[in-house]
């Protein structure tokens, strides 16, 4: 994201960023639980520094997706909740990825037991058949908009587009009738987690983590110490290209390999995915050795 900020002259004024709960790269000697607490308390420090009366909201994804499937330690969200509640500051959850079943419940907010004031959604709402997104508004915010807000000067030409709405309805009907979210929870996610646990034994893998049908594999030169390859990001790109050639789309975020398959993936398809990832890791290791990089 640093590259995006630099190119786009971001962040814009009025947006303040705090550290991410990325234990694998930034946790140092702390346990994941202690690191989760420490990172959450950066929010407390930032609010105190900026001034409680000047902070409108805290925005975050339940799990950071495009940042590299950063699954926060279990201690993180309860502490964020405490800090926001004590200061009466709004929470905005970006559920563009976690919304509509990916974590085995309809929304990631219930998985993490948070009650955001606003929930941003998109992606899975139409399964990508047409572009559509939205903001789910908590009743306590909607009441203010309705009774005290006056005119809301915001909207888009395609807000509520009828064809996109028809796609969303058909998509959500399929998800309900076919029990897609239950399939994630009961069938696909447990197998996905077992598969990732098996990746952890590979010599190139420093960590393999999942939540629901989101997964990340950290590629490292050696297991203990969570070290990184010298040219950070290059090994991920190599591995991604090898995956494509081997018949599997994976995404590389730096040296983290990401998987986030369709929710309807079957046990047979998951098995194919698992054996293919194994081959991809072996081929990546062989290529790194051939190049003298490992």
């Amino acid at each position, binding site marked *: 994201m640093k590259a995006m900020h630099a190119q786009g002259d971001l962040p814009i004024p009025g947006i303040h960023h705090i550290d991410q709960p990325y234990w694998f790269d930034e946790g140092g000697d702390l346990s994941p639980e202690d690191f989760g607490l420490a990172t959450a308390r950066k929010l407390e420090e930032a609010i105190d520094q900026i001034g409680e009366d000047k902070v*409108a909201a805290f925005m975050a994804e339940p799990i950071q997706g495009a940042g590299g499937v950063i699954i926060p330690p279990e201690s993180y969200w309860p502490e964020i909740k405490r800090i926001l509640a004590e200061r009466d500051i709004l929470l905005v959850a970006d559920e563009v990825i976690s919304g509509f079943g990916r974590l085995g419940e309809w929304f990631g907010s219930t998985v993490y037991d948070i009650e955001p004031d606003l929930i941003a959604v998109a992606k899975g709402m139409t399964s990508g058949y047409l572009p*559509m997104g939205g903001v789910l508004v908590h009743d306590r915010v909607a009441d203010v908009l309705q009774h005290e807000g006056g005119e809301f000067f915001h909207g888009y030409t*395609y807000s509520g587009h009828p064809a996109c709405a028809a796609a969303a309805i058909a998509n*959500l009907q399929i998800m309900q009738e076919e029990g897609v979210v239950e399939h994630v929870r009961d069938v696909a996610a447990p197998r996905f987690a077992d598969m990732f646990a098996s990746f952890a034994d590979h010599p190139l893998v420093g960590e393999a983590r999942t939540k629901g049908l989101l997964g990340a594999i950290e590629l490292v030169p050696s297991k203990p110490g969570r070290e990184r390859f010298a040219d950070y990001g290059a090994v991920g790109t190599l591995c991604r290209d090898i995956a494509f050639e081997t018949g599997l789309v994976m995404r590389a975020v730096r040296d983290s390999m990401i998987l986030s398959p369709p929710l309807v993936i079957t046990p047979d398809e998951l098995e194919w995915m698992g054996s293919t990832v194994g081959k991809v890791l072996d081929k990546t290791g062989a290529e790194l050795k051939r190049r003298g990089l490992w």
Partner: protein
Amino acid sequence: MSELSNQHPTDALQALDASHHLHPFTDHGSLRQEGSRVIVKGEGVWLTDSDGNRIMDGMAGLWNVQIGHGRGEIADAVAAQMRELSYYNTFFKTTHPPVIALSEMIAKLAPEPYNQMFYVSSGSEANDTDPAAGALPIGTSKASRRRRPSSPAGTPITARRSPAPVLAA
């Protein structure tokens, strides 16, 4: 219809793509040297490229294809809606049946205190909407908040390096 409606040779498609198409999040110089992979079909979790290779879509497109590719029910529903009412806005004190039905559906799927939906076209726009929708209640309501910020917009705080839409807000 044949199995693949695209019958053009891959290299011709790649050359045309390189001539006129700027891709997102891409180093255009190196992509144009290498040539884009041309995806021509999707079915379930599988994609097919213009050389006939089958590739598993391990990213569900861009994290979004929950039900898999190629479901005819969606195509039918969209076609039917387009024949009935392809577009109308929701600005002029106007609405339409599909957005009414969808809003009810999402309110039922969502946890209890979420009964209202504001529509946009993407997650990026959703996260552009968040500060506006959040700043308004905090700036206007004395009854439901225990204090008002000194500026109406306040300062949203985001987790660092969370995805682009949040940071763009």
